[in-house]
């Protein structure tokens, strides 16, 4: 029993059917953590990318060290750090929030690189052309750089969204009831790990296959020459 839901262990198939609803509850938590973590990664990554491109080395250098550190240390350790150390400084977050924050922090180091690569892919001639047309730096950014950078950035970000989804099970170590944790609890209570854990694996496979198919579709539809303005 979990959350008052009964399951039937009389046969493999009925067992699988009876635990599916509760696994779906876990799946929903997984999706929420993925989306929240991705959002944090997108925002923080942009911040790192801007800081790393700063003309002053006093700003750029610390940002480089921080992102390198975030990229080179394990997610699970960052998560433990946030979960046990933040409360010592009076910051009390629910486990789910801490988990999403850890996911976002780790992946912000990766998204920062995507932003940088996307912006650098736009050659200097575009900047020159914008200057020749007398566009202000702000208008250059909003009307020349952004429309061309976005189609380059989106596919790579999509891949990281899928990666974040695959890292959500790590959150189970701080008691988040995402799908793998639910599957494991079912195994603990019924002594049958095979069916719940295989179902978790199968559901993951379905989600990632669907997500990569959707990303491929998106990639073919993205305007490669940039988003047309008016």
């Amino acid at each position, binding site marked *: 029993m979990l959350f008052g839901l009964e399951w039937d262990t009389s046969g493999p198939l009925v067992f699988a059917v009876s635990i599916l609803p509760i696994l779906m509850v876990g799946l929903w938590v997984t999706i929420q953590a993925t989306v929240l973590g991705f959002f944090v990664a997108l925002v923080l990554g942009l911040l790192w990318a801007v800081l790393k491109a700063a003309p002053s080395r006093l700003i750029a250098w610390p940002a480089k060290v921080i992102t390198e*550190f975030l*990229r*080179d*240390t*394990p*997610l*699970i*350790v*960052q998560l*433990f*750090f946030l979960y*046990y*150390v933040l409360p*010592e400084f009076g910051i009390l977050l629910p486990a789910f929030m801490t988990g999403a924050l850890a996911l976002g922090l780790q992946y912000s180091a990766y998204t920062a690189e995507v932003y940088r690569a996307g912006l650098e892919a736009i050659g200097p001639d575009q900047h020159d052309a914008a200057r020749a047309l007398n566009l202000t730096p702000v208008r250059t950014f909003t009307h020349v750089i952004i429309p061309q950078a976005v189609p380059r950035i989106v596919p790579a970000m999509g891949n990281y969204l899928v990666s974040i989804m*695959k*890292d*959500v*099970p*790590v959150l*189970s*170590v701080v008691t988040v009831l995402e799908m*793998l944790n639910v599957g*494991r609890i079912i*195994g603990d209570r019924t*002594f*049958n*790990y*095979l069916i719940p*854990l*295989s179902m*978790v*694996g199968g559901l*993951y*496979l379905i989600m*990632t*296959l669907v997500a990569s198919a959707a990303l491929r579709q998106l990639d073919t539809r993205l305007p490669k020459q940039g988003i047309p303005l008016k």
Partner: protein
Amino acid sequence: MHWTEYFFPLLQGAWVTVQLTVYSTIFGAILAFAAGVGKVSPNILLRGISIVYIEVFRGTSLLVQLFWLYFALPVAGQALGIDLRIPPVVAGVLALSLNIGAYGAEVVRGAIQSVQQGQHEAARALNFSPRQTLTAVTIPQAVPEMMPSFGNLAVQNLKDTALVSLISLGDMTFRAEQLRNFTQDSTTIYSMLLLMYFGMALILTAMMRALELRVSRWRRAGA
């Protein structure tokens, strides 16, 4: 406990982490080459096996794979009447290698496909067998292309070893957890742990760079 006293237990765990990283990177590289070459093989069976392997292990979470091997495999064995209980260290190395091997396979496939068509034609003109072409022409030119990605994967693998602490393997993260339970000194212990992983990643990156330089001379002259 003074913070210097944390070093000894953490270093004991660090040794386990190093061993896990080395073994699973080596096994992972072997799997990566097998599946990467298999995916571009003309043999439909080999290609099918490689594709299924790559999709399954890239498409599911490493932690799911680890738990499946450690918790679910013995149950499957019981149902089949064979003993498939594996010790944590085997489950850990197996899950890490299978996972990183699937990612590496895509790198190997990409690098093989990046070798120019003219090279294959030249090999055929020189009467090389397909096997000779693969081992003497394609792979030596593809390996330098793979190295930067392999460097990233090795660091990824190092980070992934931290997950084996969840199946009670005494790696660095496991030791840190034990210390924290004992002393409650979370800030010091986890800061040390993060810095130790960072140091190990920097060393590993430097080693992979050195390897990259060594194999770069296999690159086609003038390329």
